[in-house]
């Protein structure tokens, strides 16, 4: 069956995620697609209630989302972890500094390689030798330590069950604490 892992679990559904985002009151999705989130972006094109806005650099996404929120909307950002690292000052200085309750879905590039190299729970920060290994992606190695350093709460997302539990929880924490939160997408959507 398409979308299944060797272990048998089914990849998360883009349609189901979008249903959940609608239920949470999302008005706009701002971001840049990657292979794992391409289905989500495709399904959002022409969506009746969520307006999709693609940007040229991830830093734009946080500033635009901040403007949308100040203007009374409920935006959401979808980018990849590489873009998250690129957009650090924008996240800090706009959504973060403005206290915008903003949920960000972040594609976790390199997550599977990190697990395969048994580095998923290794002590951090990683040393230079680890960060330059050919069999791992330093974007993945640096994602969680970076979010922790920035004070951004984050959770991992792996399945439709997480779509129902992790996504609403991250949304609620963002609203309650008036700050950005991140859900790390460890698997591609179908």
């Amino acid at each position, binding site marked *: 069956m398409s979308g299944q892992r060797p272990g048998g679990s089914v990849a998360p559904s883009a349609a189901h995620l979008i249903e959940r985002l609608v239920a949470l009151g999302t008005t*706009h999705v*701002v971001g840049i697609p990657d292979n794992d989130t391409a289905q989500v972006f495709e399904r959002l094109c022409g969506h009746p209630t969520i*307006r999709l*806005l*693609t*940007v*040229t*650099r991830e*830093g*734009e996404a*946080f*500033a*635009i*989302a*901040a*403007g*949308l*929120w*100040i*203007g*009374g*909307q409920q*935006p959401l950002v979808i980018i990849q972890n590489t873009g998250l690292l690129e957009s650090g*000052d*924008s996240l*800090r*200085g*706009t959504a973060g*500094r*403005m*206290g*915008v309750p903003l949920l960000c879905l972040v594609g976790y590039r390199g997550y599977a390689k990190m697990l395969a190299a048994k580095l998923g729970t290794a002590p951090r920060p990683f040393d230079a030798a680890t960060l330059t290994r050919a069999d791992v992606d330093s974007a993945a190695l640096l994602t969680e330590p970076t979010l922790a350093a920035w004070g951004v709460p984050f959770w991992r997302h792996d399945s439709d069950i997480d779509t129902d539990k992790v996504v609403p929880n991250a949304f609620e924490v963002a609203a309650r604490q*008036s700050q950005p939160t991140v859900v790390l997408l460890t698997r591609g959507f179908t």
Partner: protein
Amino acid sequence: MLTKDELLAPLARLREDRIVVTTMSVLRPWARHSQSELDFASADSAMGHAADLALGLALAQPKRGVVCLNGDGSMLMSLGTLATIVDSGATNLTLLIVDNGTYEITGSQPVPAQGRIDFGALARAVGFRRTYAFEDADEYEQQLPEVLAGVGPVLVSVRVEPGTEGPLARTPSASAHYLRTSLRESARRLRATLRG
């Protein structure tokens, strides 16, 4: 070349109920011309992202005009935003670039390609249908009503004399009204104003 006051005074007279986002070297001067609750200072924020923020406001408030007083250095930091603005379909955004050729508030260092950048050409290349460039105060003042009245997005590049504005800081004693509160509080106040 215009002075900052020649740039800002006519805009303050004509802005009506538009949101005005300011940043960098005109941020404090604008506060001498306007005390509106619809002014927002992109200070203590992220460098180069005022135009993005203004785009978000414009998309959120499609029935209200939004003017962004952006710096030339700031615009250069996020040129891709020009494409995003056009692609967004926003028709209520006026992006006014204060072209003084310097990073004024950090010590007036020259921006890259100082004096050689044609922002109007860059904007037209990504699809802006309306662009203006001004170097003369009278011409600017005369045409500003037309600039603001038409359908956006519109990019306006204005050559402005380099000044001596220092670094920006948010403190209770700041001369500019919108620098007396935190960025977070400013965002909440504008949100509340816009939600009525």
